């Protein structure tokens, strides 16, 4: 059973998708947690299916991420790599950055200090 089929019921989170140059930028506004992770996954996979290959997830306006949120990023990273694409993470605050360091996920992801850096070639 998939327990995450209720995207949007949390009510305090939005995922904004936009194109910047050749990249697809997804902004996480709120929390990325077990209750909404599937919505992010669906949005990214839909863009991947439409042909997008360069992705940046922007955490400028993100409060916190739980282990399910980290897990969905790992899963998306794998899916994007399988299509020879590229996933970058941008604008993690100190707390979020520490989550990636504690879990050693900073070794798996390309993390940039700013969205501008992440969009640079």
């Amino acid at each position: 059973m998939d327990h995450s089929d209720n995207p949007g019921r949390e009510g305090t989170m939005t995922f904004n998708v936009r194109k910047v140059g050749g990249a697809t930028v997804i902004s996480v506004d709120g929390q990325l947690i077990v209750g909404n992770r599937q919505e992010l996954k669906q949005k990214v996979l839909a863009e991947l299916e439409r042909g997008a290959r360069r992705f940046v997830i922007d955490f400028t306006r993100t409060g916190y991420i739980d282990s399910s949120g980290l897990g969905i990023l790992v899963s998306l990273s794998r899916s994007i790599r399988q299509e020879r694409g590229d996933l970058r993470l941008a604008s993690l605050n100190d707390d979020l950055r520490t989550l990636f360091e504690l879990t050693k996920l900073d070794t798996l992801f390309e993390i940039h200090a700013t969205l501008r850096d992440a969009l640079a070639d």
Partner: protein
Amino acid sequence: MTPRAAVLELPADISVIENAVERAVHCCASARLARNRLMFNFRVGLTEALSNAILYGNGGDPQKRVRVELRVRSGEVRARVTDEGHGFDPDTVPDPRLPENIPRPDGRGIFLMRALMDEVHYNELGNSVTLVLREGTRPAP
């Protein structure tokens, strides 16, 4: 301050987690912990405990309940999260930082609770976890 206690009874439905965490944070504000310890460490730790209780402990069965008991005093918050499941042995959970586990999408919840809270205790059965967060005993996070 006078110690404060509160109880939340929740259905086993992941869509209630965020709201429950915000209610708990509001209840714990009087502990006067540093803002990011309450708004980050506690929120992530409690989210993990609730997620485990709902998805694994109660198997996502919406008929089952999760009980959250909060104890708040100056400089300390305690949250005990209890599900209706049969429990598990938290010491058997693999270290997600091992090279072979880093590419896995799961298995980081208990590790994050232990990393972000000052104390994490399970009861003998393994269906109830107590999280303790204090002021000034561990850098955030």
